[in-house]
């Protein structure tokens, strides 16, 4: 052996361990390689991986309920759905606070749409109540304004809520409301709004101060008006009456508007208490249904399995997970159909592509090149044109039916339906995906030396035996590669089934597209997409187990 001892590490000429100096030498090389792929890597990360991850996240993301109805969700946590009754007054009071802001910021319809996925009818309920919420407590507000005109005065309210010149401000309350408004709307509520709630008044009238601060933020940020010049929301006045009725100690208060407050408290004592439950139920009966509240409670966490359950035709109900009603089950059927049709397309491609690839691989160069051009020809034509051509070919007044009628094989009344169904989709997609089967098959077959078949024949095998026992096994990797390619392409195919699939020939991807662009249920679309991705990965894994990915060659 050389001069290395068998105990220590091998050293380079300068005494550093050989491994380290090798790594150092290779590092520059690796960096250069990394630099070369960096543009593509960044491109893929930004435009491909990131959106996919975002979509995957959307399939479980569910912040809209807790963002839009923060107080309600908090109060609802204590409610036990097993009682079979709608929750108590505190929940409805919180719902009023949340709904008022949501309605002002027009976020209640979005929430309604979201919850409608889980329980039909909630969308119209949210929209209806949102429209009427300004009228809740109308009588009490009228009485208050009749008592003293200053309750209609914007400047009076502003003075009352700031606590007058030089009063100590309650910035914590202001910031809390900033966060709340920002969460509900998704907008930015930073910056000076020309208003800070007074600490004293906030302690005296907590609900009112909260509501007015929210109003002030909305006025300054969304409407870009001066807070002191705008009359406050009905919700502020409702909050005031509730504060006064709750026994706010206004007797000892001496800030601006103290006298008016004392008079208002006397009035409030005589007014009937505000019944939000009754008001909501009057605007829509749905609010008295415990099922409604159950849905809201189930979907109040930030993460949900609801989209995934929906994607496999299940739903969360009072008794746990259960299947959806018969007429709402579509996705399992669609997944099965997608898998089945992809397999059929894949099989059709194998059967059609094998002889062509064989010819390509065995014909003399010149003829093979010509044939190759014919194979690639479809790639030079637009996908839409090809698909539309199949429409022309296959429709009932189309070329094939005309020929069949002309030949007398079918009569004019009995023209075959070959388009806008599964058959049409399979025919058109087989045609479109055929090159993806032919090319890998061809490149594998062209590496099989003709000597093998000759050897088999010289050993006494007939043409068929030589093909089946010697040629075919060696071409299997090409079939494998082509099948994976075609199957994975077809399982996610969209445009062709959309154009020629009708109702019975559409794929799961058409449903995904529908949810992305029409129903705007991105969460469900993301869940369906995730399941599709998982299915492909599982199939790929199974394929690797059964056939072995080493047996797949592209050339």
């Amino acid at each position, binding site marked *: 052996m050389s001069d290395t001892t068998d105990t220590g590490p091998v050293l380079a000429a300068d005494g550093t361990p050989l491994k380290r100096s090798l790594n150092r030498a290779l590092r520059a090389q690796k960096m250069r390689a990394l630099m070369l792929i960096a543009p593509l890597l960044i491109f893929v990360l930004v435009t491909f991986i990131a959106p996919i991850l975002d979509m995957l996240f959307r399939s479980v993301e569910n912040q809209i309920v807790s963002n839009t109805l923060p107080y309600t969700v908090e109060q609802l946590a204590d409610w036990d759905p097993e009682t079979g009754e709608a929750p108590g007054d505190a929940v409805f009071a919180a719902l009023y606070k949340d709904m008022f802001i949501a309605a002002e910021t027009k976020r209640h319809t979005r929430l309604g749409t979201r919850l409608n996925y889980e329980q039909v009818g909630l969308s119209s309920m949210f929209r209806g109540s949102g429209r009427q919420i300004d009228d809740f407590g109308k009588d009490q507000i009228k009485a208050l304004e009749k008592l003293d005109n200053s309750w209609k005065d914007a400047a009076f309210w502003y003075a009352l809520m700031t606590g007058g010149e030089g009063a100590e401000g309650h910035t914590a309350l202001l910031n809390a409301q900033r966060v709340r408004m920002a969460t509900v709307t998704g907008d930015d509520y930073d910056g000076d709004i020309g208003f800070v709630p007074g600490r004293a008044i906030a302690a005296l009238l907590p609900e009112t101060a909260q509501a007015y601060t929210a109003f002030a933020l909305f006025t300054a940020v969304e409407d870009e008006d001066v807070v002191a010049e705008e009359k406050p929301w009905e919700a502020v006045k409702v909050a005031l009456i509730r504060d006064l009725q709750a026994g706010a100690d206004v007797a000892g208060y001496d800030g601006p508007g103290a006298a008016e407050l004392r008079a208002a408290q006397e009035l409030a004592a005589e007014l009937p208490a505000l019944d939000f439950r009754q008001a909501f139920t009057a605007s829509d009966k749905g609010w008295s249904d415990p099922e409604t509240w159950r849905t809201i409670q189930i979907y109040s966490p930030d993460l949900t399995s609801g989209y995934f359950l929906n994607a496999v035709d299940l739903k969360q109900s009072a008794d746990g997970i259960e299947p959806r009603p018969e007429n709402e089950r579509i996705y399992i059927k669609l997944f099965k159909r997608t898998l089945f049709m992809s397999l059929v397309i894949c099989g059709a491609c194998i059967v059609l592509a094998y002889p062509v690839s064989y010819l390509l691989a065995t014909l003399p160069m010149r003829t093979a090149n010509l044939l190759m051009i014919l194979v690639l020809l479809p790639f030079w034509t637009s996908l839409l044109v090809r698909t539309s051509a199949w429409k022309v070919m296959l429709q009932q007044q189309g070329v094939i039916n005309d020929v069949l009628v002309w030949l007398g094989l079918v009569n004019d009344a009995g023209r075959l339906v070959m388009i806008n169904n599964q058959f049409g989709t399979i025919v058109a997609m087989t045609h479109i995906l055929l090159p993806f089967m032919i090319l890998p098959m061809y490149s594998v077959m062209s590496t099989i*030396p003709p*000597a*093998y078949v*000759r*050897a*088999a*024949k*010289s*050993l*006494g*095998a*007939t*043409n068929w*035996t*030589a093909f089946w*026992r*010697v040629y075919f*096994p*060696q071409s299997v990797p090409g079939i494998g590669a082509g099948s994976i390619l075609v199957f994975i392409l077809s399982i996610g195919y969209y445009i062709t089934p959309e154009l020629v699939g009708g109702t019975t020939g559409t794929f799961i991807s058409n449903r995904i597209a529908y949810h992305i662009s029409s129903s705007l249920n991105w969460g469900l679309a993301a869940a369906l997409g995730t399941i599709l991705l998982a299915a492909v990965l599982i199939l790929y894994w199974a394929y690797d187990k059964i056939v072995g990915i080493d047996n797949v060659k592209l050339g």
Partner: protein
Amino acid sequence: MSESQSGDAFVAFERVQKSYDGENLVVKDLNLSMPKGEFLTMLGPSGSGKTTCLMMLAGFETATHGKILLDGVSINNIPPHKRGIGMVFQNYALFPHMTVAENLSFPLEVRKIGKSQREEKVRRALDMVQMGEFGGRRPAQLSGGQQQRIALARALVFEPELVLMDEPLGALDKQLREHMQFEITKLAHDLGITTVYVTHDQTEALTMSDRVAVFNDGRIQQLAPPDELYESPQNSFVAQFIGENNTLEGTVKEIRNGVALVELDDGEVIDAKPVNVSQPGERTTISIRPERVEVDLSRLSENAHTLNAEVAEFIYMGDVFRTRLKVAGRDDFIVKTRNSADQQRLKPGTQIKIGWQPEDCRALEAV
């Protein structure tokens, strides 16, 4: 060589022609007959049509014209798998998806031979090539030489009477090649099979064969046992192609007593044996092997003609000395002398005289 003597021949080509493109003949008028048990080698430069001949015999190419007979029966219309001819391909063509044993049992399976008999035959064939333990391996797990043996065993396992081999040793290194040459000839003779062997390596052809057919330009240039081929080449091509050879150009002056007097282009005169020349005045190429050139003139007969030569280079090669001379205006004339005790070592620049026995120098047609 156009006479047909295929009466008792095992393999016979009769006036066979072959063209791939309808314009050029790749094989032109091939006539050949082999007795049973012969080891015949087709030797020739690349592109001379050897493989084509073999493929026609195996049935993978059809003859454009002529007849191919096997055991007296025309096989022109018999498909390859019914000819029962064993074949060893250049890159072995072992089926990569089968084990060695499966490769060997393939020809037996297609002949519907029973399992136990099959296993017995496979085992015997593997033992025959000393590969008994390798039955379970895949071809890719074997070295080149081992693959070669398996290919041989596979071609022999179904006991064909005729075996064809197309440059079977081309991919092996020199030492292994020499070893396999020996094994193949031994097997072929032990089993008594008729073998057609194709190579472009003349040493291989000379050491292995009973007879060698030298191919060039789609024709057999000479068909003869190795010694005859080396010592009595029938034409310039064979003389050049087989072994080392010195040539000189000249004109025949006279032919007397079976010896031709040739006047070289620089005016000198030398003796040669007329092979392809018959009349004085004909242009000729004379051909002499380097080891038959004499520098020691005392060994020649009294009145032998000699040539002037100048030593250009002396190369010591151990067992022999190789001297390059300038003779008759050419400077590539080689002389090989044995390294014996009394042999003198020629210094470059020395003027000497050389000569030879007339029967060692052959006057062939001019090229």
